[in-house]
């Protein structure tokens, strides 16, 4: 306690003189210095290795990551561009298609409308409700005929051909169904064709149409009545339609049905006696024929041909028409038939397989 006793601690210098005494520090042991230095440098080396490894990994990650990001960005940009183009195309196509649905023959979008109908018919070929689609399209044709007639024009042959073809497609689609469903479908087709027929009758009665238009309408009515008769025959005796049915093409060239006047009902084709305008056959006998037995192929859609454009339409019922020489019993084009217009091709089976045959 000497140190404390000797100092009065009256000023800071007393304290400082005491603090100076703390400056005396014993020397470090050399081995401790060496040991501390070695440990310090070893720790530094460990950290250096760790940092080098981390730097290497970080650089690799940066390189890969930047490359991946660049590639991703390029892919995303390309994908986005493609998607935008597709989207714009789809929206544009949809709008055009929607606008084309109200178009009439001769207008710019009308071919697009027909194309879309054909596409839908082809896509729904195996669908049980494809007959309904075909009927809807035939209704569309009727509306077109009605609109053109009311506006004082002459319905083009192409419209009539499509109407005929779509009616045939509806019947063919109904025949592909099971019997119970087919009967219901035939009833629906019958009703629809009847309505169409009534529309035509009304048109003829209400409007004083030109002779050319009247001729066209009559021909159309005749065609519809033939389909009506076919359907009625089926409804009378569905079991007769057991044999393979000919194919009906969705693409019937315009004029193919109008330029060739074959027999509406070929020789040997039975006509129900209870139908109006079917005189010459015993009443109630739908299968007995003067010339042979009932052939479903003669009743099938597509086997019926109308008169060519400009010729006289059939005034009597189709079943009472005499056979013309050289005309085939199946209704297909044969040598000796009137010359065909360009693009007039005989109907060819387009779809093999289940659609052409009725299996029970």
């Amino acid at each position, binding site marked *: *306690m*000497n*140190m*404390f*006793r000797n*100092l009065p*601690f009256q*000023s*800071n210098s*007393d*304290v*400082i003189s*005491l*603090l*100076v*005494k*703390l*400056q005396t*520090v*014993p020397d*470090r*042991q050399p081995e*401790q*210095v060496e040991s*501390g*230095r070695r*440990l*310090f*440098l070893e*720790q*530094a*080396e460990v*950290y*250096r290795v*760790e*940092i080098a490894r981390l730097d290497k990994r970080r650089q690799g990650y940066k390189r890969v990551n930047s490359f991946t990001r660049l590639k991703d960005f390029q892919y995303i940009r390309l994908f986005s561009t493609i998607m935008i183009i597709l989207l714009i195309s789809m929206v544009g196509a949809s709008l055009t298609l929607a606008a084309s649905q109200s178009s009439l023959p001769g207008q710019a979008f009308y071919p697009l409308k027909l194309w879309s109908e054909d596409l839908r018919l082809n896509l729904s070929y195996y669908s049980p409700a494809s007959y309904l689609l075909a009927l809807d399209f035939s209704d569309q044709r009727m509306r077109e005929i009605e609109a053109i007639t009311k506006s004082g024009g002459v319905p083009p042959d192409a419209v009539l051909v499509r109407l005929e073809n779509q009616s045939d497609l509806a019947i063919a689609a109904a025949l592909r169904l099971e019997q119970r469903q087919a009967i219901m479908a035939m009833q629906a087709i019958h009703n629809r064709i009847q309505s169409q027929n009534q529309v035509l009758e009304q048109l003829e009665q209400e409007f004083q149409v030109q002779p050319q238009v009247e001729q066209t309408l009559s021909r159309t009515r005749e065609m519809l009545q033939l389909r009506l008769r076919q359907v009625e025959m089926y409804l009378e005796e569905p079991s007769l339609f057991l044999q393979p049915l000919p194919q009906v093409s969705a693409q019937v060239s315009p004029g193919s049905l109008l330029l060739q006047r074959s027999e509406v009902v070929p020789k040997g084709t039975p006509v129900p006696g209870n139908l109006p305008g079917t005189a010459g056959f015993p009443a109630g006998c739908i299968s007995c024929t003067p010339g042979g037995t009932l052939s479903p192929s003669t009743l099938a859609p597509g086997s019926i041909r109308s008169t060519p454009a400009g010729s006289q339409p059939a005034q009597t019922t189709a079943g009472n028409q005499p056979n013309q020489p050289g005309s085939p019993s199946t209704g297909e084009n044969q040598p000796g038939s009137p010359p065909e217009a360009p693009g007039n091709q005989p109907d060819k089976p387009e779809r093999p397989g289940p659609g052409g045959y009725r299996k029970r």
Partner: protein
Amino acid sequence: MTSEKDLLRKAHSFDPDALAEIYDSYSPGIYRYAFRLLGEQDLAEECLAETLSRFLLALKNNGGPREHLQAYLYRIAHNYITDQYRRKEQWEHELTEAHPDLEQDMRASLNSRIDENKLRHALSCLTPDQRQVVVLKFIEGMDNRAIARSIGKPISAVKSLQHRALAALRRMLKNELEEE
């Protein structure tokens, strides 16, 4: 000898030569500083090792000083010593009780150690900034500018801290003397 900035730049890349130079240059001062405040060689060695280890860790984490390495190391050591003071409140009395029967010739030396420990105890009662200023100024012999860099305060604050620290020490040591 490379400049301090070059030395630190190399130290950041863990250059062994630079780190060895740092150890050789700064470890004696840190050791002395620690010993003067802690009063024991083992504690001073521990303080030195901890200070340099924290320095390396800061370098590894891309931290550490870009200049004024000495001030940085003293700050680390000072924080460590402050922690030690908080942990050992009665350390200065243990020595007195541990050696009751020493011979007369050793008693003088022991009394001197006891006085030093009392002084260290008085130092430990100062605030950390006051203690650091007093030690750096009157024990380590640093000027006010270097102290200001070391504690991160202006020179005027260093002077003020120094004045208040001396006054506090004087008061505490006087009380100690009166109690005896």
